[in-house]
């Protein structure tokens, strides 16, 4: 695209200061909301979530940290090195994954840790996403636990550390490396090394040819272009674990902007959230009966109920839940609603997870802009 074309490209304006963004089609992608072109960070336009429970691969959000992203990846020669404190180090090809292990499918939400950061008040620095840095896909691959069982963990392993082909632009920049504690890996038997997304190879920008899928956990752990799984007997203290992607270890993981000195822990499970997908905040409705519908998800316990309010949260009504795609998936919901002529409404939805967790009435605040799960409200007027 030339500069002149880019200037003429469609834009969208997200509900935040400096919220105007171009819509650009990156390779293997339809036009998405460009947060940053290099490294690419692309947001899914929210109306996509109304179209189906699975987010199409070409509409799935994209988030890279470092500009050293390979533009060419050979899926045939790509290998995942399994090493560290294992009895049988391995170099696994995609073919190995497809032929030497049980094949597993899971439908799971991948949500960026910083999803909705642009809606924080007061604002915080960082990637200024609206609510579209998330997606729900059917992932196919091999259980991480099956790979580790084949490799044979030695005694004393405390974490599995992993990396991908994303490389720092400068030699001194910390390489993007993440780790999961062995308890969490054992506890979450659904962590996959996935080579398929919605029945097709992953788009390169979503991690072709293989990425980690950590159902119920934030996207920072879903390593793209996975090339190393390393068993270690320490707690990884690299920048991306020790400094970045930390949440306050306070009740509700929320603090005041003036607070200091509190402990932090690595970000982990998704907070429970729900959204209306077929009505926009500030929108107009036609008078008469209609269906309000949306999505809900949480950090892996599954959605127990979604409630809907048309009076700003004073009274709540149970919505009908849609088909269950598993406890890590978006769950669709819907409810009948009759809009009266010339009235205004404040619609709201709140989800309750099987874990008992629900959404907050006051937005959480933390300096990195993580975990937002306030009850969403949608002011609408009726024509």
């Amino acid at each position, binding site marked *: 695209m030339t500069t002149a074309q880019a200037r003429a490209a469609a834009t969208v304006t997200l509900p935040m200061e400096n919220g105007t963004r171009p819509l650009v089609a990156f*390779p293997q992608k339809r036009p998405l909301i460009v947060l940053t072109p*290099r490294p690419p960070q692309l947001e899914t336009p929210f109306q996509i979530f109304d179209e189906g429970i699975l987010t199409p691969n070409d509409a799935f959000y994209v988030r890279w940290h470092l500009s050293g992203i390979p*533009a060419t990846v050979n899926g*045939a020669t790509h290998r995942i090195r399994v090493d560290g404190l294992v009895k049988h180090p391995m170099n696994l090809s995609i073919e190995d994954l497809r032929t030497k292990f049980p094949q597993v499918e899971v439908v799971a939400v991948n949500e960026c840790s910083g999803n909705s950061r642009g809606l924080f008040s007061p604002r915080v*620095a960082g990637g200024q996403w609206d609510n579209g840095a998330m997606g729900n896909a059917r992932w196919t691959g091999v259980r991480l636990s099956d790979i580790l069982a084949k490799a044979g963990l030695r005694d004393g392993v405390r974490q599995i550390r992993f990396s991908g082909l994303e490389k720092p632009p400068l030699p001194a920049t*910390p390489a993007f490396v993440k780790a999961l504690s062995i308890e969490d890996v054992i506890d979450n038997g659904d962590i996959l090394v996935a080579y398929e997304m919605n*029945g097709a190879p992953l788009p390169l920008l979503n991690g072709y040819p293989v990425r980690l899928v950590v159902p119920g956990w934030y996207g920072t752990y879903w390593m793209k272009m996975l090339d190393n799984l390393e068993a270690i007997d320490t707690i990884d203290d690299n920048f991306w674990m020790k400094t*970045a992607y930390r949440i306050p270890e306070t009740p509700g993981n929320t603090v005041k902007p003036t607070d200091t000195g509190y402990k932090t822990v690595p970000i982990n499970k998704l907070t429970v959230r729900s959204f209306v997908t077929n009505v926009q905040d500030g929108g107009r409705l036609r008078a008469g009966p209609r269906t309000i519908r949306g999505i809900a998800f949480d950090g892996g316990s599954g959605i127990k109920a979604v409630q809907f309010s048309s009076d700003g949260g004073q009274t709540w009504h149970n919505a009908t839940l849609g088909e269950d795609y598993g406890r890590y998936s978006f769950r669709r919901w819907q409810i009948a609603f009759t809009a009266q002529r010339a009235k205004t409404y404040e619609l709201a939805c709140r989800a309750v997870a099987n874990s008992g967790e629900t959404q907050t009435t006051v937005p959480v605040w933390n300096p990195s802009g993580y975990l937002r799960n306030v009850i969403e409200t949608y002011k609408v007027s009726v024509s």
Partner: protein
Amino acid sequence: MKGTLLRFLTLASAVAVLGATYGTVSIKFPTFNVPFKPGPGQDVTIANCRTCHSAAYVYTQPPLTKAQWTAEVIKMRNAYKAPIADADVPTIADYLVTQNGKQ
């Protein structure tokens, strides 16, 4: 109509073949970019910042104070090891305030 259908079938089978194998995938990143706009300190900012990221990292932030922009520049140096000279830190921070700042 027939041509369209044929093209569709050809495309569908090509996708099916690709779907069954894991070969080489090459993409060409769009030349679309967000540049650092003219202003005092633009050259120093480009020289120090563009190696790693586009100017969209600046213009999509909420407006920040000079102290906040300075903290961001220092973070780029300390956390991400951008080789920014001491003398360039205030120059870059001042430029960022002119681009997306507040009092």
